[in-house]
């Protein structure tokens, strides 16, 4: 569904956001965070677990943030239960290895998710000259299919939609033994619009490289 060039440009845009999110997370936890180059692709929701490398029966904690604008969709911070506990303990100063109270875990991870997701989406918006309106983030627990199902339903993204774009950015914080993923899913319409914006960006880049005049109105 994506050409090599489109995939390349999308990865570049997402990567800039991932770097921003990584800096924010490093400042938050006070420890070096390693962010991986994001993986961008198009998939059917039902095959998402394969693309993400997350088993369907693994119990996860998640923060979901819906967004709308030129593109509609939602973003997820996904962590295993153990990683969620480790990150919470790290940020609240609690003993590593202890299970945080439910409320403490959800409050802490909600804020972490909010900061990371905004780092990525905000960078995308600034890059393509667009604006996202965000909903208040929601904390959820469960398996990947459950979280995706509920989040998709809430965001009016149809499950099984074969035109859904995903971007996965993995990070890890050695000291706290935290490994997580940030996932962005777009509705079919949102996917088409993003591709249009990406094609606009590539057109601009080509015009600049060849010494031609860049379009006056970039990529709206």
């Amino acid at each position, binding site marked *: 569904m994506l050409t090599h060039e489109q995939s390349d440009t999308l990865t570049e845009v997402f990567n800039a956001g991932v770097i921003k999110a990584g800096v924010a997370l490093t400042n938050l936890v006070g420890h070096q965070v390693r962010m991986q180059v994001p993986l961008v692709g198009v998939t059917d929701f039902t095959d998402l677990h394969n693309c993400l490398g997350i088993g369907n029966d693994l119990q996860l904690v998640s923060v979901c943030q819906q967004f709308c604008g030129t593109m509609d969709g939602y973003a997820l911070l996904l962590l295993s239960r153990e990683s969620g506990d480790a990150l919470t303990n790290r940020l609240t100063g609690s003993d590593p290895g202890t299970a945080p109270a439910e409320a403490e875990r959800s409050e802490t991870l909600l804020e972490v998710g909010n900061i990371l997701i*905004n780092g990525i989406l905000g960078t995308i918006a600034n890059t393509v000259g667009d604006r996202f309106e965000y909903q*208040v983030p929601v904390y959820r627990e469960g398996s990947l299919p459950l979280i995706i199902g509920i989040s998709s339903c809430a965001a009016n993204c149809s499950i099984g939609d074969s035109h859904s774009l995903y971007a996965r950015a993995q990070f890890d914080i050695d000291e706290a033994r935290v490994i997580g993923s940030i996932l962005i899913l777009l509705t079919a319409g949102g996917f088409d619009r993003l591709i249009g914006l990406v094609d606009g960006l590539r057109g601009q880049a080509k015009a600049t490289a060849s010494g031609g005049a860049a379009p006056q109105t970039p990529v709206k």
Partner: protein
Amino acid sequence: MARILIIDDSKFQRKCLSRMLGAMGHEVTEAENGAIGLQVHETIKPDIIISDLLMPVLDGIGLLRGLNAKGATTPVVVVTADIQECTREECLQLGAKALLNKPVTVATLETALGRFLPAQTGEKSPC
């Protein structure tokens, strides 16, 4: 010492900010959304407001509009995870003194307070 009103729906964030501001010697009051923040503002007359943007009931933009409608002159520093340029512009147009991106550091917060707190609140009371 200044009277500071923190408005944020995140208990985690309120706790972090309260801890930082308390350690600087300020008196902190918390509110969990813009609507409550507007009420508390009437009561305690803070020297400065530190507010989140994305909140249920009344968000940070609504808070800024509400303060403008009341003719309030209390400086507002927005602390948000939203890094979009258009958001920054909108907040500044609505009268916010500054927009800091989460997570804020003690140094960033201190600088912002130093710039926007009314001068007399930084001075010791004569008695």
